[in-house]
């Protein structure tokens, strides 16, 4: 038997103390709320249980997962991940212990703890804490009414990032549309045309899996798994190219400070999919001077440069393993560019044609 060193004992004690602290805070919220709202979803093929001790937080975060609601007849199945969610403002629960910022920091700083198997991310403003320990996670926010638009559109992003590898998937920054027999992963930094490609597909024959973050499995036959049914747009972009979507936006009263958010499941439920086999990676390229969209050749390096840096920089801490996984993905599936023409209807048409379907 290997004895623990004093340093290891210290870390183990810290784990126990941290978990005790968050459990105590969550139980206080449950007591104040009078119970727990348990919602079941199937994410990346596995059952995920969200236990809300705050109805307000459930109203804010739940809709992004609505398209992945588990069938009602699987009540006996054991979840692969259970997440406890609560806020202090609506429940009066004391905040859980949070990592101490090491000195002065910029207002939007993000603090990470990574001591396998315990992982945590803490944002001081507005305050939120995500904590992950194998099959169980906790997500606390100070005030469910004060959550960044990006976290409303893509809730529990870090917890899912840590959990997905246990299910054979990893999370990447990208959109995904396609058909049940196969689809495409659209990659690129914000502003590259990714959301334009995905949101122009709403109302077309293509199915919607993701706009911003999506799970991709490893292996020789990669599969796309949807995480969120949300789409995000720059407000000017929404008012210009996507005027028909403006009445469907969820946050028209906040567009001075936020990107526009659409919950696609609420308006295009028939187009939602939980995922499909990955047939190709597409890198959008805006071509304002041409009318028709078309698929073009690019190098694998260009596809990797569009996928990996934006994923790595948006989801810290990403290690060399995740970087290598993305490299292997790029080398396993065909990579192309998609030139986005001014006629937005030509985008889903080009993708459907590329996938061998009628648009």
């Amino acid at each position, binding site marked *: 038997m290997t004895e623990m060193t004093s340093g290891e004992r*210290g*870390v183990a004690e*810290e784990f126990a*103390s*941290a978990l005790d*602290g968050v459990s105590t805070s969550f139980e206080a919220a449950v007591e*104040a*709320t009078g119970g727990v709202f348990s919602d079941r979803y199937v994410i990346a093929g596995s059952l995920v249980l969200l236990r809300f001790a705050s109805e*307000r937080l459930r109203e804010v975060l739940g809709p992004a997962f609505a398209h992945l609601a588990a069938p009602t007849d699987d009540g006996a199945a054991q979840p692969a991940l259970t997440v406890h969610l609560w806020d*202090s*403002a*609506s*429940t*009066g*629960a*004391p*905040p859980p*212990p*949070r*990592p*101490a*910022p*090491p000195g002065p*920091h*910029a207002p*939007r*700083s*993000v*603090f*990470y*703890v*990574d*001591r396998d198997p315990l992982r*945590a991310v*803490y944002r001081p403003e507005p*305050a939120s804490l995500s904590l992950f320990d194998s099959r169980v996670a906790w997500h606390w926010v*100070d005030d469910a009414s004060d959550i960044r638009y990006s976290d409303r559109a893509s809730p529990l992003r870090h917890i899912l990032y840590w959990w997905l590898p246990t299910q054979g998937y990893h999370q990447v920054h990208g959109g995904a549309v396609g058909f049940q027999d196969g689809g495409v992963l659209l990659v690129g*930094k914000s502003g590259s045309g990714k959301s334009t490609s995905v949101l122009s597909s709403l109302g077309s024959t293509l199915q919607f899996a993701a706009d911003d973050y999506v799970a991709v499995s490893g292996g020789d036959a990669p599969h796309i798994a949807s995480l969120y049914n949300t789409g995000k747009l720059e407000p000017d972009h929404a008012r210009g190219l996507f005027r028909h979507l403006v009445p469907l936006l969820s946050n028209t009263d906040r567009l001075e400070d936020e990107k526009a958010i659409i919950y696609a499941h609420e308006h295009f439920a028939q187009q939602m999919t939980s995922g499909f086999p990955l047939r190709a990676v597409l890198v959008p390229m805006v071509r304002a001077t041409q009318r028709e969209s078309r698929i073009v050749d690019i*190098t*694998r*390096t260009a596809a*990797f*440069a569009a996928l*990996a*840096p*934006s994923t*790595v*920089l*948006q989801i*810290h*801490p*990403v*290690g*060399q393993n995740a*970087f*290598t996984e*993305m*490299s292997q993905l*790029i*080398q396993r599936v065909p990579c192309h560019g998609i030139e986005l023409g001014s006629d937005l209807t030509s985008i889903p048409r080009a993708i459907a044609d590329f996938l061998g379907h009628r648009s």
Partner: protein
Amino acid sequence: VLVVNKRGRGGKVTEYPAADARFELSQGALHESIDGEVIVIDLSTGVYYSLRGSGAEIWGILERSPGVRGYDVARAMADRYANSGADVESDVLCFVDELRAEGLVSMQNGNTAANDGSSAAMVDGNPADGFASPVLEKYTDMQDLVLIDPVHDVTTAGWPHTRPDTTPDRKPA
């Protein structure tokens, strides 16, 4: 895209600052090689790089031989491309120094004898004719992601810790 290229040619190899120093890849950088090109990302700055030409090959030597002397990298490449007619040694030493200046490789302290192997063992391939000058391209278009949301890793002293609470006592809404 910025092409980092501060190199001048024609000097004596021993005059290059990278010649006598020993190098290893920096810990804070992730890297992958695809189709003869290396993509490197510096997590602390949000800057990413493309290493083209013989840059990927030089990077491979530095990866396989931590602690290697700059001069030995240059000799290994010069031997492999002896028939190219190019000023391989100075190109390589300048490139290594560019990597150092960008923080992608770091100089080792001390004067240990690690990786003083033969130049033939360092390169990955037989002698070749065509030498493509190493090119370091620098991309800063995603730095905003790091600058807007600065990232900090909390040390062992930072968790768990009940911070002095600035949140007033709350009652259920």
